[in-house]
């Protein structure tokens, strides 16, 4: 009953249904009532991940090594957990930059590099071709098998069939035509292929239902539930190992891990996944639902894989039936015609979905990132001057689709037979995994450079080619097998399957290990070694900091040049058509509040940037850059300028924060410098004054001495009383002179650190009372009342007795000088503080002028200056005293008393540098002495 024509008609009917869905969805989109703008359709469309590989191949794999097929679905689940971080960022970047494909994404990130886009495209095409061939193989072989119904006969080797009788070729041609119909009716590819997405979502439902139907039929129809199947498997010595597949195989955990990693990367970087997840996404929020719905889909479609595999092995124990076909052959063997047909349609769904999305994505890349940049640069074609290029663009895309599918067919003819479905798919997975460093690095690491990305991609791709693709060719007989067994030129170290002698891993694990080392190493190494151009630096910032909102038209600020709105319109119209160009202009004008075309649009940087972004949506970032560049006169920004703008724009917060901090620091430094300068000036002035003062102080006694000497010398008639008086003056003035000279010498010694200190145990109470006694006459002469508060005993301190007396005398004579002229009162107090002795000498004079508290302890400073215009003393006393006190580890200071008058105080530590216990002990000891 299942004649060939029935199958063909059903197949075409199914494809027609898909097309109808797509057509309807497109219509709805045009009316603005999008069919796909909901998270469930989005999640289902992501299930394009499940291809013929999943539908047929997983069972094939499970029939050989049990749960070994699962990493391909668990890996994505793990990666999807990170989607909220990774994919959301990609979505934002893609939308803001109107990115059209994975190649565009990478190219745009690294300075809109056309070269990089081209390299990515080539790698993708070469890498994905085996994957497409896998789908062709699946469709054609299942078709062939189904034709033989009810017999179960494996299809003949393809090599034996002439191409024109080969179903796979016809499948390829039909798929190409269908894809062209589907994907290239519209040009404006940054808009969504709504029809395609709707059709793919429908296909995802069909393949899931078909697979579940088979699963239920096998598990519950043929056998008696899961327990029954597994019990039978466990009883069969050949099947039992499938249930504990890791047993005793060293490499199998490693291969499990690497498969997981590989599929984690594949879910991001397979062109069709990137297309569906990122490019076709209509709303960022849909991601949230997809994050758990899509893994759930994968779980569901894998639930029955192992039961079907075991069922197949039990059903066809002799091994003549390819395990990859169990899904189809079991229903056939059970004479379930409709189920078999449903399975075929499910498989067809899985395969066509993959081929359609994949080739559309690839054709966009080939057109935008490979062909157009080259054509635009070929001046001979004068392409940039042609009026309408929309036809050319569509043509390129259509031919790209045909080319990619035919390449897939070619690979199928060359290498398709040597591998099972899953192995072919994994080769493609490994190829797209090479984009991970450049793409992931590109959105999280600003330091990645164009050269780094290029080096990483090429290195990784070279290793992939050498370790995976070459062996595939060799096994198919296109290259000598000796290459695999002995290595090129007999160099065993370079054996493609055991590079540098690494053995014991399966082929994929081996290839991934080496290609990732080469890729990441080259990417990071070259990036770190080189520098970025201005454009690269700017794009890196736009990508990495995409969530840091730039001001409106932020990207435009990196452009400087002149253009006319008409030129820009012409450029845009050439690629997207005059109508779309008008629409884009109107949209921009509306945003700006301009009634275009009645009013002119200013072709400023923001507008040029807008046109470039719109154009990028049609022909990719790299090409758009070239085209807009041809229409405007652009002035190159220097790297420095761009950096400057960037710092302003995207790092404005950090930067201004730093700036504030810096300026605060600067202000502080300036203030400090100013203060230091003031201080230096002050010191300089003081020094000048000092010299003048010292001169004055020396000359004043000298004047008296000389005058009286001359009088006595010249005038013998001076009477005795006068003579005595004059001689007395001479003696006093001489003394004064001596004192001054001593002070100056003291000062010199102390300042140079050459003073001699004679330390002994000193009783400070004695020092105070002795000096008071010594000054007694002065107090009496000036009618000064002295009050003392001294404790009975104080601990002795280790100090230079003479110097302490000097300090006390200085403070007391200062007090005498400044205290009230007629009712002078001086209070002297000695006290034991925490670990020090404190002496205070207070007068009832005018006090120290506020602000002078510090300066009076400086050399040459004279409080008297300020008070009377006349210095009273040399200005050295307090300075020397301070040095003496500080030498003993104490402090000397002054405070004004509330009622008027100044209190000079100094402290002497009881034990310098000794612990407190010792101090207490010393106190007691000295107290009993």
């Amino acid at each position: 009953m299942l004649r060939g024509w029935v199958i063909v008609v059903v197949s075409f009917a199914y494809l027609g249904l898909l097309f109808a869905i797509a057509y309807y969805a497109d219509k709805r989109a045009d009316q603005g009532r999008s069919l796909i703008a909901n998270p469930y359709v989005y999640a289902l469309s992501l299930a394009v991940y499940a291809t013929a590989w999943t539908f047929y191949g997983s069972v094939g794999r499970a029939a050989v090594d049990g749960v070994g097929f699962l990493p391909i679905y668990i890996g994505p689940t793990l990666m999807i957990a990170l989607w909220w971080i990774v994919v959301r960022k990609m979505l934002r970047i893609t939308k803001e930059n109107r990115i059209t494909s994975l190649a565009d994404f990478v190219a745009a990130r690294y300075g809109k590099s056309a070269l990089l886009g081209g390299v990515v495209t080539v790698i993708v095409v070469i890498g994905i071709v085996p994957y497409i061939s896998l789908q062709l193989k699946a469709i054609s072989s299942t078709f062939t098998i189904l034709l033989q119904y009810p017999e179960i006969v494996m299809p003949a080797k393809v090599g034996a069939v002439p191409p024109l009788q080969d179903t796979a070729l016809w499948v390829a041609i039909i798929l190409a035509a269908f894809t062209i119909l589907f994907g290239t009716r519209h040009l404006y590819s940054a808009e969504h292929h709504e029809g395609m997405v709707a059709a793919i979502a429908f296909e995802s439902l069909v393949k899931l239902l078909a697979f579940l139907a088979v699963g239920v039929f096998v598990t519950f129809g043929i056998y008696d539930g899961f327990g029954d199947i597994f019990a039978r498997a466990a009883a069969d010595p050949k099947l039992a190992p499938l249930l504990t597949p890791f047993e005793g195989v060293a490499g199998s955990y490693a291969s499990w891990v690497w498969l997981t990693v590989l599929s984690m990367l594949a879910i991001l970087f397979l062109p069709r996944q990137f297309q569906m997840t990122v490019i076709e996404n209509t709303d960022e929020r849909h991601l949230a639902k997809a994050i758990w719905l899509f893994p759930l889909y994968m779980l569901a479609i894998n639930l029955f894989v192992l039961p079907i595999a075991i069922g197949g092995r039990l059903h066809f124990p002799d091994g003549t039936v390819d395990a990859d076909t169990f899904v189809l052959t079991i229903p056939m063997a059970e004479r379930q015609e409709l189920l078999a047909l449903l399975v075929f349609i499910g498989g067809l769904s899985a395969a066509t979905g993959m081929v359609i999305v994949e080739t559309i994505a690839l054709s966009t890349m080939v057109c935008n990132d490979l062909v157009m940049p080259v054509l635009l640069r070929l001046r001979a074609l004068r392409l940039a001057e042609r009026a309408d290029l929309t036809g050319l663009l569509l043509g390129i895309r259509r031919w790209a689709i045909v080319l990619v599918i035919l390449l897939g067919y070619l690979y199928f003819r060359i290498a398709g037979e040597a591998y099972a479905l899953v192995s072919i798919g994994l080769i493609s997975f490994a190829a797209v995994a090479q984009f991970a460093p450049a793409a992931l690095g590109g959105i999280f690491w600003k330091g990645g450079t164009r050269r780094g990305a290029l080096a990483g991609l090429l290195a990784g791709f070279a290793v992939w080619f050498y370790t995976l693709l070459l062996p595939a060719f060799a096994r198919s007989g296109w290259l000598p097998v000796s290459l695999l067994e002995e290595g090129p030129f007999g160099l065993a170290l370079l054996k493609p399957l055991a590079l540098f002698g690494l053995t014991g891993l399966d082929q994929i694990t081996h290839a991934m290990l080496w290609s990732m080392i080469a890729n990441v190493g080259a990417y990071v190494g070259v990036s770190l070694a080189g520098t970025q151009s201005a454009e690269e630096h700017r794009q890196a910032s736009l990508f990495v900091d995409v969530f840091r909102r730039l001001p409106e038209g932020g990207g435009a600020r990196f452009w400087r040049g002149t253009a006319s709105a008409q030129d820009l319109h012409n450029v845009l119209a050439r690629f997207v058509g005059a109508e779309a160009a008008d629409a884009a202009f109107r949209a921009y004008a509306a945003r700006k509040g301009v009634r275009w075309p009645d009013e002119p649009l200013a072709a400023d940087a923001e507008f040029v940037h807008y046109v470039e972004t719109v154009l990028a949506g049609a022909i990719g970032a790299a090409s758009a850059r070239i085209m807009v560049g041809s229409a405007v006169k652009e002035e190159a920004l220097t790297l420095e300028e761009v950096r400057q703008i960037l710092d302003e724009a995207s790092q404005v917060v950090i930067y201004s924060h730093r700036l504030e901090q810096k300026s605060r620091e600067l202000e502080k430094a300036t203030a400090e410098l100013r203060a230091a300068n003031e201080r230096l000036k002050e010191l300089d002035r003081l020094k000048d004054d000092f010299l003048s003062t010292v001169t004055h102080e020396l000359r004043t006694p000298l004047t008296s001495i000389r005058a009286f000497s001359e009088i006595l010398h010249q005038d013998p008639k001076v009477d005795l009383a006068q003579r005595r008086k004059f001689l007395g003056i001479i003696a006093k003035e001489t003394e004064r002179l001596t004192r001054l000279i001593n002070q100056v010498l003291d000062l010199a010694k102390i300042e140079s650190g050459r003073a001699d200190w004679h330390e002994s145990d000193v009783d400070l109470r004695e020092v105070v009372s002795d000096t008071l006694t010594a000054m007694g006459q002065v107090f009496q002469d000036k009618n000064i009342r002295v009050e003392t508060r001294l404790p009975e005993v104080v601990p002795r301190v280790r100090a230079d007795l003479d110097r302490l007396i000097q300090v006390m005398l200085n403070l007391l004579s200062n007090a005498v000088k400044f205290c009230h002229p007629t009712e002078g009162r001086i209070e002297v107090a000695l006290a034991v503080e925490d670990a020090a002795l404190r002496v205070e000498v207070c007068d009832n004079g005018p006090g120290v002028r506020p602000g002078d508290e510090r300066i009076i302890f400086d050399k040459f400073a004279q409080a008297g200056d300020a008070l009377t215009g006349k210095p009273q003393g040399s200005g050295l006393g307090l300075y020397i005293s301070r040095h003496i006190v500080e030498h003993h580890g104490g402090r000397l200071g002054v405070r004004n008393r509330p009622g008027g008058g100044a209190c000079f105080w100094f402290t002497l530590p009881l034990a310098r540098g000794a612990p407190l216990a010792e101090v207490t002990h010393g106190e007691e000891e000295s107290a009993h002495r």
Partner: protein
Amino acid sequence: MAKKKVLIVDDEPNIVTALEYLLARSGYEVAVAEDGEAALAAVERERPDLVLLDIMMPRLNGYEVCRRLRERPDGGAIKIVILSAKGRDVDVTKGLSLGADLYVTKPFSSTELIARIGALLGDR
């Protein structure tokens, strides 16, 4: 002929004593002021022919006294001799530019000082 009167302005009692003795011995009438303000008052009161002026004094320094004396209506008549321990060129120049007739640095030669005062007052 009446005795010429000299006003001694200085805050160092010992120097005042020496000057008083020297001038009296040379036949001058002597008045004393201990600071700048007192000096200005003494000039009003005593009408001296010559002022011996110290610079570094309490309240009003010698330069200021000199300047104010020269601002008086009969300011030109009075002779001013600055007698200062400040001996730098700038100090001397400043004193003379403010109208002092003579600038003598301390310590001075008593013979020379008396001779110069005599010359200024046109005695000999």
